[in-house]
């Protein structure tokens, strides 16, 4: 067995051997590269030009290698990519991808039933594209303001604060994920997710309620907004 292994890996008089020591654990992903290294842009539209611009900012920077997740396909969606990683469980990316495909199927089935049973006037209002429903549901669950606890003079106050687009995304997906994990496992996960996305699309459900509670708290504490600039 070992002999056949070595024959497989013999190329140009360079011999590679796989031993127990060759499998090692190195801590902290971020320590492999210097902070000056820049990650590549995953959007394929960024690389449309046949001739890259000379004396660009990128020409003077080192670039990290692209991970194996990154495929420069035309179906790339930033919010979907982040949604996959937040809903991940135990590093099982195969399961999450199957989840997402099945939820989109379920959404399509539910909407088609409505579409076929509706009158001609209402058919225009029904949305059949599951991607658009997904994006609209996330937009409805994104908060505009966040509340942060600040201690001043011995007392702790709740202060309203602006939110980044990345933070908004994370809050929306997290609130949808928490609802998913509350449900019972005897019901299929795809069905549960589909119903929650449709509820958020219609401004109903727990994800949107979480956002409205945040807004209420920020509105109540709007007097302390000057404690934190920004």
């Amino acid at each position: 067995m070992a002999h056949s292994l070595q024959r497989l890996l013999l190329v140009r008089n360079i011999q590679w051997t796989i031993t127990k020591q060759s499998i090692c654990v190195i801590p902290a992903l971020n320590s492999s590269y210097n902070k000056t290294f820049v990650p590549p842009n995953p959007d394929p539209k960024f690389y449309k030009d046949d001739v890259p611009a000379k004396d660009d900012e990128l020409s003077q920077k080192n670039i990290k290698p692209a991970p194996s997740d990154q495929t420069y396909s035309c179906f790339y969606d930033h919010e979907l990519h982040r949604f996959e990683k937040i809903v991940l469980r135990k590093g099982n990316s195969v399961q999450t991808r199957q989840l997402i495909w099945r939820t989109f199927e379920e959404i399509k089935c539910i909407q088609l039933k409505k579409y076929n049973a509706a009158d001609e006037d209402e058919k225009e209002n029904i949305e059949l594209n599951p991607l658009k429903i997904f994006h609209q549901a996330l937009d409805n669950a994104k908060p505009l303001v966040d509340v942060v606890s600040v201690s001043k003079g011995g007392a702790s106050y709740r202060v309203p604060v602006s939110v980044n687009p990345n933070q908004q995304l994370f809050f929306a997906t997290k609130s949808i994920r928490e609802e998913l994990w509350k449900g019972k496992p005897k019901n299929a996960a795809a069905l549960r997710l589909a119903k929650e996305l449709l509820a958020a699309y219609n401004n109903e459900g727990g994800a949107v309620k979480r956002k409205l509670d945040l807004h209420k708290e920020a509105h109540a504490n709007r007097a302390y907004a000057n404690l934190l600039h920004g």
Partner: protein
Amino acid sequence: MLYLVTPLNFFLDSRCYHKRVTLYLCNFAMWNHCLKCFALRNINSLNADIQVQLRQCLLAPVTMVNKPISLVIERYISTSQHLHRKIRLMTVDRDNVNLQLKKQVRYSEDYIQHKIDEHNLGVRRLAAMMGEDPDSFTNEDVKKAIQYLFPSSLTAKPARPQMEHPSVVFPAKIKLQANKEGRPHHYLFYTRQPALYGLMHEAYDCILDLHSYADKMRKMGQRPPKPLDLGLTHWLSKEDIEKEVLSSKISDDLYNQFITQIERLVEEPYSEKYKDFIMKFRRKLVQRELSTGTLEKEVGKDGREFVRCQGFRKTARADVKLIANGSGKITINGKPMQEFFNIIADRETVVTPFIFLGILLRFDVEATVDGGFQGNWMMLHGKQYFHDGTRKSAMAGAIRYGISSAIRLFISPEQIEIMRRGGLIDIIFKLVC
């Protein structure tokens, strides 16, 4: 001031005839006059030789007053134990110093050169002992000879007998940083990083200079110019500064402080005056040559060109063969790709370099792959779970790297630059099992 080096009863003591005396006469004429009278009064108690010399000095003209008399004392006046110890240490023999104090001791260049000559002589003698040619006696032969002559079974290798070149034992880079008396040359020696803090002080001096310059120009009514344009350069990294500017290592905080200090200089108006100082710490990105290296095109039996290449990812190793004028077929270990890879994500990773450049159906690929989680070694020795043949992402990554490095021979250099910006040229350096 008057220095009466001897006690007052010296003049009266007749046993001091063999000693010499210094009388430092000062500028004040009164003091000189008093001294002269005192000495002349007691001169008869001294020896005849001293009497003669004293008389010559004391009765000399006024111009000689400020110079010391040519008699010098030869015994120490204050004989404390502290002083004696200091003097003894300054003249100590370096050979007998305990080498545990090596970190505190700094060796001079002459001393190291002396040791190098001794070492070279010793190597030649060793060669003569072993009966070999002394001119062609390498470092490895020295080690083997000493292992033969002085065998030891000590487990700690630094404790075994060794014969190393003195440049390894006495690092000559650490030059003497202090006088014999212990006074350091650099005024910032006790900060432990004199070079770096010296540069920061220099930058601050430049900032103060620019403040006063800007005040002058403002009084004359001139507006400040545009801010400094540094061009397409970036700051030196921490490792570059350790190599070039300093000889020791720094912490991250110090490095950040150093760069904020120089960025303050850059933000000042009229900072073009000190542009040379700033550009010492700025560097252009010198790109590696993105050439093909040792890869070569070969021609097969069909007349189609092909390229062989290797790919790596984690512990997976792949041998990839890219064939031109193909129809998009991919075979791995004899099987087509759709059979080998059950998971669709792995198929996408194999195909990314083609999709990135829009060249999907122009090439054929033949690859052999082993290693990683589903490789032969793990199947035999690893734990038996999830070994159902689905987890082959390392193999896919290895093939992807092999394809992306082989495609560079069929592509223009501008497209190679685009691939570099897409991150498809470097190996993924994350070894996590």
